């Protein structure tokens, strides 16, 4: 399971969670589904490429019920686009070895490209099924999957190993086991760097990327408006709203002018 930690502000309101980096909501959905599917003898490993704070997101993965986590961390991994990112993930997956199913979220809420899952399948030379709704059956050799494809629902059978991504996202942690979370807090998290993964500098981070962000401009921020506070009695307030909706001028309404 590939996880990306994203900035908390992008997902939750202030103070809702303590960590600065949280699990990307699309990844969280995929992860919780995979954990629910888990059978005896199945091992789930979460990998995450990211800054030091990614460890906190990985600890949450442990608390949610995964067996092991690996943090892919190296200063040379920074600035990676989808090609460089998928290459590092591929090297990590190959190092883990003997992986049957690689699972991603549809996209991240910060980058929002949704490309890594496809790029990763190409890097690994494995079939890829994106936009997964449910895994109906998982055997040693195949997975039966239902997914949305444009205006169709498809039932597919894919030979393993394969790469999949779930379509949906969630911000709700279904069952964080507090005891597990506490234990996870003290767990030494395995870190793999560039040397552990035998990755050449030219293949990762900004150097391994084929795109570069030239500049970033702030755009159409939400405009703060001048408000009319409707604090009269409720019948009057409702009447004003009614008039606005029906497009009638009532002296307060500016709509339609």
């Amino acid at each position, binding site marked *: 399971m590939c996880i990306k930690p994203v900035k908390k502000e992008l997902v939750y309101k202030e103070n809702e969670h303590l960590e600065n980096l949280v699990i990307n909501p699309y990844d969280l959905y995929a992860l919780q589904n995979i954990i629910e599917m888990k059978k005896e003898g199945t091992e789930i490993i979460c990998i995450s490429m990211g800054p030091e704070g990614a460890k906190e997101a990985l600890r949450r993965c442990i608390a949610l019920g995964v067996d092991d986590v690996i943090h892919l961390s190296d200063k040379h991994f920074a600035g990676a686009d989808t090609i460089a990112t998928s290459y590092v993930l591929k090297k990590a997956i190959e190092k883990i070895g003997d992986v049957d199913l690689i699972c991603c979220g549809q996209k991240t809420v910060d980058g929002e490209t949704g490309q890594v899952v496809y790029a990763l399948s190409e890097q690994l030379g494995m079939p890829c099924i994106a936009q997964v709704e449910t895994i109906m059956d998982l055997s040693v050799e195949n997975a039966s999957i239902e997914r949305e494809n444009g205006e169709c629902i498809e039932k597919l059978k894919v030979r393993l190993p394969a790469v999949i991504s779930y379509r949906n996202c969630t911000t709700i942690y279904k069952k964080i086991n507090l005891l597990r979370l506490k234990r996870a807090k003290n767990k030494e998290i395995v870190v793999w760097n560039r040397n552990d993964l035998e990755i050449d500098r030219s293949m990762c981070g900004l150097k391994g990327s084929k*795109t570069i962000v030239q500049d970033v401009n702030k755009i159409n921020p939400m405009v703060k408006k001048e408000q009319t506070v409707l604090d009269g009695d409720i019948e009057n307030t409702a009447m004003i709203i009614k008039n606005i909706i029906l497009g009638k001028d009532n002296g307060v309404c500016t709509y339609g002018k």
Partner: protein
Amino acid sequence: MEYVHMGNKKIWIINDQDVLYATEHVLQILHKGIRLKRNDNDEVSVICVGVNREDELKKLFQYGADRVIFCEQREGYSISLYVKCIATMLEDKLPDVILFPASITGRQTAAMLSVRFNAGLTACCTDIKYDGDKERYVFIRPAMSESVLAKITCINEKLQMCTIKENIFESRFVTNEITFNMEYFSYTEKGLDKNIEVLERKALDLKERVDIKSAKIVFVVGRGMKHSMDLCKTVARQYGAVVVGTKAAVEEKMIQENRQIGQSGISISPDICVALGVSGATQHMVGIKGAQVIIAVNTDVNAPIFEYSDYVIVDKGENILAELAK
């Protein structure tokens, strides 16, 4: 006449269909491709893989394609076959820039080819410009909940790629006087792809689809409205409003997912938006940024949504609804 060959740009549009090629989405991207031509020496080609449908291919020329490169595949169509066809064409013809529709097929093809050819790929562009000084294309896309516009260029390799969502550009009919400038390409698959088998394919139920994009009046519900959904739906019906909601409302099963607005849902621009129990976190506000009039009802006097609203009511959503129902 001077014939300039050096520096001609080959602009490719990848068609994501295998029968009906002239979709509105492809025609929109085609028109953008034509606008990227610097002069008549630059060439816009549409790449089609699938069955031979002359009427469909003709329409591509009517909408301005200089050339259609066509690879006939009558059966055994699969995504891996499709990608292999296009990859073989790519090696043969070396385009400069490739524009893909951001459909599932388009995205997957783009991302796989970008890895295979080490080509830079920008997802979901909202504009593309040509930088004459540096002889490269500049891909522009929103990021971080549509709060910023990023300008992205390709580095390290010549081939440049991007995907484009539907309805970003406009399609435009060019002419009926067309030349059928077809280029045929053949590719034969050695052995069928047995990795993915389609067991069943059925169209999504049409009745489930709601056109929330063109709604004039919407009621947006947040988690706070959990116990008043019946009332909310009744009042909405009474006023001809469409009920939509935040991600939280979907997770609480108050509304169907196809009615979700905001960052991970849909952005709407209604005339009137009545927000009931919506706090106004950035990821929701993105979805109703285009609303002309926002009426916000929330019990929390400090709810962020109030700052962006025209009318502010500090009350329970259900109280207001109960009044509106009368």
